[in-house]
């Protein structure tokens, strides 16, 4: 670092009378930059168990960071006029570091204030936007203002100590700060959060800032007193529980922070069922598991994915592909109902490696039994583009941040790619969370699917659920659900329920789709917001579902 600082300054035509001082200044600037970016990324992860990690939450956090930095820059400029900018700098670093270390411990109380626990999705949906914004303000505005003031103070420190030009000092400090930001960005996402967790990331960033503050104040001979700040910071670095606890009658079996989300497995005491939940979860889950493979019944949409297998010709090999495999719930359902003389083979893509690892440990996802091949850490579209052969069934059940469908997995081009991977007569089934057949998000995806697949798409509302299944076949008609004989009375009864008025809808491939979802423009987030707004009206009976 010292040599690097000397090289950097030498390159700018400076002598380096006190290389250690220069290195310290550069390190402080870099540490503040790194802590800012690591804090920004970890902040979303800290809030995710309550508010999710949707684009809205990201926007709120980024907005607060930018607001705080703009205030901090001006405040730092003002503080730099004082007699002892280094002492002020030390105090700000200590304050920011201590607050960072404390933030995860305050998160639960803060989130509970703005998003009471126990609310169902429809009640919580209206609170998430404002709640995440208010939580970001309470938890992160103050320390980030302090960190924003660091750069002007370091510039002032540099110019006073070395009688340097302000522009030169500013350029060097900004460079160091930005390189620090770069390290904080990559370090937080790829190393700190996945390896140590959100709490330790904040604690580590806090400790570094406090250490910078202590060292910066050393010449002021206040270090021993300031070092006392380390004591509470170290205490705060102790493990803290983030995220809401399990519901009554449930216990957490495992909980991890993956690079993408917070993931946990809970077990219901009453019947031993297990659920894999991500981020905010609310009353939903990503995957379900029951002790015995087979149909889940009730409001579980996974059962419908088993229909094509149950209708497969006897003695055949049935190849199923899963985009958004999750913990393999659909696979487990299919295994339980597989006709004995049908050879079931599967390939699935799950983008979150941690989900696959937890599923193998707690939810009986096979490691590699020859029948199911799992592509962990692979995006669904990449999987589809590169997987070999065609499928008799493609299941698309991909969500990000619990409630958002990834736009690139809903466009006309994506469904065209799906068609290319379907065998003749092959089924394409997709799960879309929605509120009724008139849901704007559901309708847009169904139209894109029909246009990309060049086939009629059926929308089936799943009984006792807010989910809908989009169903189509390549070069073959989808059978009437009321007339299907799957071999399972339970599934046939649920299919028959779809035959009632208002439970299904057909979208023809020629349906108008001029403003449809394409790779160039797929405003799924806007449609999702519209869907939630409409849902509150539907649930109150003010709009037909």
């Amino acid at each position, binding site marked *: 670092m010292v040599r690097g600082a000397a090289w950097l300054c030498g390159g700018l035509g400076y002598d380096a009378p006190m290389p250690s001082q220069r290195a310290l200044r550069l390190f402080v600037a870099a540490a503040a930059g790194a802590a800012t970016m690591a804090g920004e990324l970890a902040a979303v992860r800290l809030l995710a168990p309550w508010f999710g990690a949707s684009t809205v939450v990201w926007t709120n956090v980024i907005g607060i960071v930018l607001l705080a930095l703009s205030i901090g820059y001006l405040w730092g400029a003002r503080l730099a006029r004082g007699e002892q900018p280094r002492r002020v700098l030390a105090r700000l670093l200590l304050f920011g570091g201590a607050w960072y270390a404390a933030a995860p411990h305050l998160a639960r109380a803060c989130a509970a204030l703005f998003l009471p626990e126990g609310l169902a999705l429809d009640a919580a949906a209206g609170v998430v936007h404002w709640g995440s914004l208010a939580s970001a303000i309470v938890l992160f505005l103050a320390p980030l203002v302090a960190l924003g003031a660091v750069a002007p103070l370091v510039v002032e420190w540099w110019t006073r100590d070395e009688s340097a030009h302000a522009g030169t000092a500013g350029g060097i400090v900004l460079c160091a700060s930005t390189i620090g930001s770069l390290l904080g960005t990559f370090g937080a996402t790829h190393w700190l959060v996945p390896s140590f967790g959100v709490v330790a990331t904040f604690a580590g960033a806090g400790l570094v800032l406090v250490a910078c503050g202590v060292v910066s104040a050393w010449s002021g001979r206040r270090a021993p007193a300031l070092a006392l700040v380390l004591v509470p910071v170290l205490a705060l670095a102790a493990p803290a529980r983030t995220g809401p606890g399990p519901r009554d009658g449930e216990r957490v079996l495992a909980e991890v922070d993956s690079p993408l989300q917070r993931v946990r497995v809970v077990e219901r005491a009453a019947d031993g069922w297990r659920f894999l939940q991500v981020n905010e979860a609310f009353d939903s889950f990503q995957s*379900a598991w029951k002790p015995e493979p087979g149909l889940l019944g009730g409001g579980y949409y996974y059962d419908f994915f088993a229909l094509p297998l149950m209708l497969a010709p006897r003695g055949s090999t049935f190849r199923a592909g899963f985009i958004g495999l999750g913990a393999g719930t659909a696979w487990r359902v299919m295994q339980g109902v597989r006709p004995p003389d049908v050879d079931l083979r599967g390939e699935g893509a799950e983008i979150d490696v941690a989900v696959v690892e937890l599923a193998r440990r707690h939810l009986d996802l096979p490691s590699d039994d020859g029948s199911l091949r799992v592509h962990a850490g692979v995006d669904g579209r990449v999987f589809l583009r590169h997987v070999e052969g065609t499928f008799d069934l493609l299941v698309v059940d991909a969500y990000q941040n619990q409630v958002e469908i990834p736009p690139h997995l809903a466009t006309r081009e994506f469904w065209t790619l799906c068609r290319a991977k379907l065998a003749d007569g092959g089924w394409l089934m997709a799960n879309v969370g929605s509120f009724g057949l008139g849901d704007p998000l559901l309708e847009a995806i169904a139209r894109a699917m029909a246009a990309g697949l060049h086939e009629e798409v059926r929308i089936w509302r799943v009984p006792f659920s807010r989910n809908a299944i989009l169903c189509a076949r390549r070069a073959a008609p989808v059978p009437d659900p009321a007339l299907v004989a799957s071999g399972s009375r339970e599934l046939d009864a649920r299919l028959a329920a779809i035959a009632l008025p208002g439970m299904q809808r057909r979208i023809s491939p020629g349906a108008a789709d001029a403003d449809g979802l394409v790779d160039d423009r797929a405003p799924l987030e806007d449609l999702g917001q519209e869907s939630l707004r409409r849902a509150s009206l539907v649930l109150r009976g003010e709009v037909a579902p």
Partner: protein
Amino acid sequence: MLAAAALLGCLPASIPQHAAALERAREGRHPEAWDAALAEPDPLLAARARIWVAWSAGDLFGARRELHAARRVQPLDPLLAEWQVQLCLALRDADGARAALDALGSAPAAEFSRAAVEALERDAERAEHARALARIVSLGAFAGAACALYLLVRRPG
């Protein structure tokens, strides 16, 4: 992956006196049960049967559609009133549940559902309070930040 654990509730406690529809729906033959309900000459029995068939098929929106239609014709039917409370509860419609509960008066079914309706109202109230608090904090912070920026720009030294 967005799933929901039976979030749309369970079947109503009371069942309609329509043997044909009931039997077919219980066997999972909902289309036939629906046809049986349509064929019922008594309008009240037919309405009750249609609601129950839709409900037992998991189509709570359809059940509510039928219920609203039936209530317009039969506003005083106690079974329909009871179902309206339970349906609103299943759909988490606090306002609708309260209105239906008030319409039930002091009937035994009202006592049965009162606690659930009040819990639903409390949830709605908690959510509203939390949203109001979050708005105040957020808007207050932005206003404070704007003032701070103004003062720092106007009086930097």
